[in-house]
């Protein structure tokens, strides 16, 4: 079942108390202010005992999620009184990221906050930091090896399981569901696929159709067009990321269907707008702000000589028409 190292870590995470929080937010999420919802001050701000220099590894500088995460890192670094150098990855090559990490080690930074592009491939970089005695905290995704001080991430399996539960309820636990998977060589795509199946496979009346949209809107659109033709009795669509879900929205609209439950995953503003407009039933939102903020706070705490939690779940929320206003407030 758990073929990848990452998933093994996730399984270990299931015992963590913070995890139950995911579901909790989905059910009673009616916070009054964005501040409360984001819960950014769980570990800080922390006053740094000396002006540390941190390195932040930005794997997808063009991705909205990661831009928000980077923004949070920079904001909290300022609040904590530390400097942060951003190592943005220009290519999609993990080898380049390892080279960047080696450069950061050579520059003798005090701590590394790592957003990795490839969990397995980045290990040599983590080990280089370990050997130089530079602490590493990973955000969003855990490297497959090497020593981490802490890991702040969304549990993708649990989050897409929540999406599965939402879909099952919305369709009366019966019917065909199209699963627009991500790029299946990627561990996040695997986790989201696994979580959805864990829930939906439990219902005898639900049939899941798996097709990879490769994280793209183009394929989300054309695959949905095709499946609407082959399976007109389709009742729901899960997009493993927001562009795929938005592609599905286009196809469903063009086909003149308004009875299909569409759920996305990411928490992009455009997805929230689609939820608001009623085109999407729900979107699974992550909290990149938390990942960035917690990452910096945990690193400063560690550098200050304090014990920090080895695993921090940054939680997810199921955003529906009921609470979408609040989330639009956060991202805008």
């Amino acid at each position, binding site marked *: 079942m758990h073929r990848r190292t990452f998933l093994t870590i996730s399984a270990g995470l299931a015992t963590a108390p913070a995890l139950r929080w995911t579901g909790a937010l989905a059910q009673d999420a009616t916070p009054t202010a964005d501040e409360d919802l984001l819960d950014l001050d769980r570990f800080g701000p922390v006053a740094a005992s000396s002006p540390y220099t941190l390195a932040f590894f930005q794997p997808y500088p063009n991705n909205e999620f990661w831009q928000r995460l980077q923004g949070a890192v920079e904001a909290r670094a300022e609040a904590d009184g530390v400097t942060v150098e951003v190592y943005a990855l220009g290519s999609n090559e993990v080898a380049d990221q390892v080279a960047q990490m080696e450069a950061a080690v050579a520059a003798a930074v005090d701590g590394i906050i790592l957003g990795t592009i490839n969990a397995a491939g980045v290990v040599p970089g983590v080990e280089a930091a370990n050997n130089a005695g530079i602490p590493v905290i990973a955000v969003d995704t855990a490297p497959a090896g090497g020593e981490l001080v802490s890991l702040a991430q969304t549990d993708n399996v649990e989050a897409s399981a929540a999406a599965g539960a939402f879909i099952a309820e919305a369709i009366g636990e019966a019917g065909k569901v199209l699963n627009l998977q991500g790029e299946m060589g990627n561990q996040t795509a695997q986790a989201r696929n696994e979580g959805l199946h864990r829930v939906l496979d439990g219902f005898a009346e639900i049939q899941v159709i*798996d097709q*990879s949209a490769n994280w793209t809107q183009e394929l989300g659109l054309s695959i949905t067009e095709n499946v609407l033709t082959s399976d007109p009795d389709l009742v729901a669509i899960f997009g493993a990321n927001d562009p795929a879900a938005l592609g599905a929205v286009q196809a469903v609209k063009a086909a003149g269907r308004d009875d299909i439950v569409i759920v996305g995953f990411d928490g992009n503003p455009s997805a929230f707008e689609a939820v608001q407009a009623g085109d999407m039933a729900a979107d699974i939102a992550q909290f990149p702000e938390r990942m960035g903020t917690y990452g910096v706070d945990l690193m400063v705490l560690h550098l200050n000589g304090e014990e920090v939690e080895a695993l921090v779940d940054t939680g997810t929320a199921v955003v529906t028409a009921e609470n979408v206003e609040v989330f639009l407030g956060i991202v805008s």
Partner: protein
Amino acid sequence: MSNAASQALGLDLRRITFGNVWQVIGPLASLIILSLLIWWAEPVFMSPQNLLNVARQASLTAILATGMTFVILTGGIDLSVGSMVALSSVCGGLLMWEFGWPMWPAVLVMVVVGGLLGLINGAIVTLGRIPPFIVTLGTMQIFRGAALQLTDGKPIFDLTAFQPSFSMWGTGDLGGIPAPVIITLVVFVAGWLILRYTRLGLYTYAIGGNEQATRFSGVQINRYKLGVYGLMGVTAGVAAVMWSSRLNSTQPTVATGEELNAIAAVVIGGTSLFGGEGSIVGTLIGALLMAVIRNGLTLLHVPSFYQQMVIGAVVVLAVLIDRLRRRETA
């Protein structure tokens, strides 16, 4: 085909450079056989609705592959088409979204930007005397980077909220035929006419067939190569209009890897990567073949990995059939 056989068929079947049925027999047969197989396995495949889906989904590749046919016929290649689509799309999208431009000028800008980007490729290839593979490998990155830079990496969703009429290019229809299909047909017919009736078309074959002999015949090679790359850019611009309307968004990462689909369509269609030989009809068949595979396998709920493998196999098979056909006529 032997001389005797061609004489028996008469002139009409062996028209000049074009219209050689044998040239596209491989891809055409594959398309028909594959369609019949899918139809047999999943009857809904032949429904008018689904056939329109196939045509719609073939449109992006087909439009780009039309331009790519010219480039490859000259013995060149253009790896930057995906990035050109993205940059053109982003330019037009930003004008509508950020500056409130009306639809028509923004659409025109997309096409013009595409053409200009193509001319940049052509200028570097001809004046710099750098192999097109290297030039466009570079501009692929440059154009993509520029698209990301202009939008700060963020997609612009819901363009029709700014310019409702923009939706006509991607989701509109004319008598039930979707706009992308009509646009593709227009581009295809234009490409076919250019290749068949103009000097640019004649020289496209000549340059790819034997650049030296063509130069020694007094043809200004650079001028026509520039034209070919410009034409490629224009098709990328047209594709950008159609595709951003269809997706109702403009994304700097759109059409990533689409250059390979376009090249694959051209190759499946029987055009030689060495240039000088091939047809635009074959290219259209190639693009349709790829869309049929994707569509059919999705209808049959075949996992995505297999779709990649099948398309890859078809590319190799198409070239193999072509090689065998050539050996027979040689």
